[in-house]
């Protein structure tokens, strides 16, 4: 299987590299500038709290996950649109090799970009107005949890993205479906908390605010690990050649 993973990964990377160096260079440069600009701008004005508070746990993993969205929705829906999916499926590549290769090709660049943005954020907060004193770095638990989440959140999005992309007829449709899914996942807990009886809501807020930050971080991390691997498992088990819709 790992040979197949490497081959698929190589193919996706070659295509991405060509995009970066080819016709899409200008568009990608604008997107990259937007990501870098927004994250450094926010870090510069927020100061050390940007990387020392649990905000880092949310900001950088979310940025990394958003980078993984485009390649993952393109993974199957894009191949279907470009009429290469059937050729890929008719080859000797294994089902798992295809899914894992495509997932890694979306997650690895997102993870790399997320780490670069995080490191840049740490540098920038140290240059923020009125800053003095020693170089600020996130506490170890926060640092490593953020790094882990920068990898896990794109993996989670990739699992959902593969499931969506497998069924969607076009990339645009896949983007819409994944967008709805992400909004639903973000909104549902919020709606559930707001819809809960007042006493339950107050109890929940009290519990969360009084909990040790380390505990919350570990809870978030465990949830992300569980969800990411569950979704990956579903994506791998759902991908069967005989069941993939073709043209």
């Amino acid at each position, binding site marked *: 299987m790992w*040979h*197949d993973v490497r*081959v698929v990964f*190589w*193919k996706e990377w*070659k*295509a991405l590299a*060509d*995009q970066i160096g*080819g016709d899409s260079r200008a568009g990608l440069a604008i997107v990259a500038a937007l990501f870098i600009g927004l994250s450094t701008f926010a870090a510069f004005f927020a100061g050390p709290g940007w990387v020392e508070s649990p905000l880092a746990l949310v900001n950088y993993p979310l940025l990394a996950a958003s980078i993984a969205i485009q390649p993952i929705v393109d993974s199957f829906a894009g191949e279907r649109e*470009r*009429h*290469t999916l*059937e*050729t*890929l*499926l*008719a*080859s*000797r*590549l*294994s089902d798992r090799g295809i899914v894992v290769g495509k997932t890694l090709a979306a997650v690895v660049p997102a993870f790399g970009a997320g780490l670069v943005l995080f490191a840049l954020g740490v540098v920038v907060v140290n240059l923020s107005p009125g800053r003095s004193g020693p170089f600020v770095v996130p506490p170890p638990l926060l640092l490593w949890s953020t790094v882990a989440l920068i990898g896990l959140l794109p993996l989670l999005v990739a699992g959902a993205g593969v499931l969506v992309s497998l069924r969607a007829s076009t990339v645009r449709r896949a983007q819409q479906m994944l967008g709805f899914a992400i909004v639903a996942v973000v909104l549902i807990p919020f709606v559930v908390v707001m819809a809960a009886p007042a006493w339950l809501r107050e109890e929940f807020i009290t519990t969360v605010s009084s909990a040790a930050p380390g505990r919350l971080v570990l809870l978030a991390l465990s949830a992300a690990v569980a969800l990411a691997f569950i979704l990956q498992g579903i994506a791998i088990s759902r991908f069967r*050649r*005989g*069941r*993939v819709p*073709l*043209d």
Partner: protein
Amino acid sequence: MTEMIRIEGLSINFGETAALRGLDLEVDTGSVFGFLGPNGAGKTTTIRLMLGLLTPDAGSCRVMGFDPRTESHRIRAETGALLEHPGVYERLTVEENLRLFGRVNRLDGVALDIRVGEILDRFDLRHRRDDLSGRLSKGMKQKLGVARAILHEPKLLVLDEPTSGLDPASAARLRADLTTLAAEGVTVFLTTHDLDEVDRICDRAAVIDSGMLKAAGSLSELRERTGSRKHRIRIRESPPALEDALTGWDPRVSVEVTPGRDGPVVVFFEEGRHSVSDLVAFLVDRGAHVEEVGPVGRDLETAYLSSISGGVDVA
């Protein structure tokens, strides 16, 4: 000769639509097999079932002795496929496309370099090796698709309209290549609308329509069994006003005088209301000297058209 493909009673439905209805097919190893049928007849569905890209509702299929439902990976490992679309990766160069599929098929290092070089030369693609595939013409993409399909020297080559979009010279070269591959033991299963192509390179063919097999056999069998009931009668000396008399007798008679005024007369006649012996008796009564009576040489197009218009004749 051993069987490369054996299909028995294969059926599949897409919702309410029956795409294949009890298809039976046999393809011998090392043969070039033409799979004919109008658009939507079930040709592509058959190919997808053979490669395990679809699961049948009923019937069985064996390719190289393997069942596509459970052993499709073994089939795909020994098969080269050019499907409905060339399936080339447009963001990769010509050479990168070939290398990709070489790696997919476990070729690497020097073996891959050598094989890619051979294929670039064989398909006259060397001068375009560094071009992005997206910038190739439709015909060149098709050529690259075929090149990719044979790169790993498969035992079975499945080609869905391989010469579509190719210029005549490239198409002729590809046909020659397919014949060579078949001589080397590769089985070629090709779908096409080009009956002339089938006539030139195929050993056997089958005609499918509305998901059902309409005819199958060697090309001569198809011509004979599904051809029309036309006869050709050669007359040495033609009595005066023969043509008028004949068309008055049966409007399905046509007369052709060749090569000159005093040359032989050829009468074409399709049996129906009258039999061919009725016609011969008619001609002899009017003083014609009948030299030869025989069936008209049936062409594949007639055989194909008569197959898809309702006839069922399986050799």
